[in-house]
């Protein structure tokens, strides 16, 4: 889910990409594949999959990312797609060897992403070519999004390592074995890298050396969603449905972890001084960042597994049932502004 300038971009079930007009109650601006362009069942079958420009994507697990006039979407069908953000027309695509699960991370016109083919890619959006001589190879799936600064690309792999690569060449600078598979993304903030593992811990590493600064005790579930860092504290959820707030400097707890209903797989979004957390039970909570006070604000009709997008007072979120919700969490009572597709 991405929202900018009054337009919400979302990847739906069945591989459709939609652009919705927020001011018109979520009315469709465009849908990919375009229904009108459908040439009929026979024609679609006769063409090779590459030629089917109106073909729906496979499952999309990453968040669509905007870059100038393009909307970048990664897909389980091994491709990175670029759509014209105004028209929804497919502009180009790039193929990896296996599924691309995480979103791309943009930095100075280059898209960085990992793939189930064990590799990390850097693609120039102008030329759609690899920036590095070859993709960087890890020893297992790379499902999370990389973190990028001017000098390095930081990425976690299911081979248990966090890698720091030279941003210009893709060469390895350092790697640190955290002792467990890394499923989610790496978060970079305040000079520290935060990464969760299937060892049920959050690890904090120095971005310069990869040295492990601290790690949490074993929590009740895997740490999958990205962490959010704000004012010297790091906030994240775990699959046992708990939300945690720790000090960036030494990992001490800001407040006792809070239990929500359902597993927390996505990272939180910041809504004023509150954190918005979605769970796989479809519940949407506001958790006060300073106190940990928690309020259930909305119940969606499907699991919320991706980080919500926040613009002003409006929170946009998607569910696994293929719905997009726009919520005003600041108002009392029912926060729902609109839902797409509208419920009958």
């Amino acid at each position, binding site marked *: 889910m991405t929202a900018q300038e009054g337009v919400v971009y979302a990847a739906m079930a069945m591989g459709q990409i939609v652009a919705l007009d927020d001011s018109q109650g979520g009315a469709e601006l465009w849908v990919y594949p375009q229904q009108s362009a459908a040439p009929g069942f026979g024609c679609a079958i006769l063409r090779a999959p590459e030629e089917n420009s109106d073909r729906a994507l496979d*499952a999309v*697990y990453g968040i669509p990312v905007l870059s100038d006039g393009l909307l970048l979407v990664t897909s*389980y069908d091994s491709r990175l797609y670029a759509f014209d953000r105004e028209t929804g027309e497919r502009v180009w695509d790039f193929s990896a060897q296996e*599924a691309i*699960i995480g979103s791309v991370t943009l930095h100075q016109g280059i898209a960085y992403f990992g793939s*189930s083919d064990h590799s990390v890619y850097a693609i120039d959006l102008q030329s759609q070519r690899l920036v590095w001589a070859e993709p960087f190879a890890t020893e*297992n*799936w790379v*499902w999370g999004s990389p973190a990028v600064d001017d000098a390095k690309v930081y990425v976690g792999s*299911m081979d248990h390592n966090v890698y720091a690569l030279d941003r210009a060449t893709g060469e390895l600078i350092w790697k640190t074995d955290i*002792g*467990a*598979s890394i*499923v989610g993304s790496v978060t970079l903030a305040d000079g520290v890298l935060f990464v969760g*593992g*299937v*060892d*049920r811990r959050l690890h904090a590493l120095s971005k310069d050396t990869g040295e492990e600064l601290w790690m949490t005790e074993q929590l*009740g*579930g*895997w740490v*999958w969603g990205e962490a959010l860092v704000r004012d010297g504290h790091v906030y994240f959820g775990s*699959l046992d449905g708990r939300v945690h707030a720790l000090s960036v400097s030494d990992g001490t707890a800001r407040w006792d972890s809070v239990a929500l209903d359902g*597993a927390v*797989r996505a990272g939180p979004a910041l809504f004023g001084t509150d954190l918005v957390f979605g769970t*796989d039970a479809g519940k949407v909570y506001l958790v006060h960042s300073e106190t940990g006070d928690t309020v259930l604000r909305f119940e969606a009709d499907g699991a919320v*597994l991706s980080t919500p997008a926040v613009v002003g007072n409006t929170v946009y979120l998607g569910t*696994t049932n293929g719905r997009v919700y726009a919520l005003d969490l600041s108002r009392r009572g029912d926060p729902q502004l609109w839902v797409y597709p509208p419920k009958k």
Partner: protein
Amino acid sequence: MQATANRPRVDPKALRKSLITWGAVAALVIIGSQIGWDTIWREGFIRPMLNALLFLYANVGRSFIVAITIFTVVLRLITSPLQIKQTRSSKRMSELQPRVAELQKRYGGNKERLVQEQQKLYREAGVNPLGGCLPTLIQFPIWIGLYRSINSILADTPLELMDLGKDVYAGFSAIKDIVPLQSRFLWLNLAKPDPTPFVLPVLVAGSMWLQQKMMTQPSADAQQASMNQTMQLMMPLMFGYFTTQFSSGLALYFLISNIVGIVMQWGIERLESDTSAAALEKVPAKSRGKPENGSKRQRSKAKR
């Protein structure tokens, strides 16, 4: 006195069995409505199976094939009393077929009487016509649970891996070393269907056909025989098709399960025929020659 004589006799053993069965069903319904069916399903089937498979994977060779083979053998051994019961039941039913056919001939015009006589025959022979179905029905939740567990274990999508993350026991610390599981075996990615795509479907369908053939008893009733024949063909074709759609890890489970089933059926057949032969030797020669005892004829027919 007359009224007492006509009253249907209640077999105390059968009554006790019936009470226990219905009591268990009632208890299950009450527990299910209190705790929730989802919880019972997850805690009673999915999590134990999934964690047992993971434990085998982590401790025996780090191979999914080894883990699923051991798991299948153990599961088959645990459920073997059911399979033996099923085999015995269908064998007895098969032995009664000539007498059922006789009854059909005699009471064909009177359905009510025919049903009564058939029930009497089954009761006297100690056979429950539905007895053969129960063991199969009991195994269904196991198959469905395994399907879900295997999909989670061989996860190659975030949703499947998340299911694994939620279902693994908190104390199972080896999980951090084994996720994601090694999903390559020969030419297969176990999380995806066989790319050939005929090797596994043919093996699954063929082994299932053989297993079905071994388990199906010959029937004297033409309609029953035709139905058996259709089932013998349809089930393997159906599972062959499933194999083209499901992950090859699940297809390998079907294959291993069929092979183990064939071996066990062969063993049960041997055991049963030895037991029957020993029992026959104890029966006086006069009784063995009785025409209504069709077991010997049926056995030789089955062997043919």
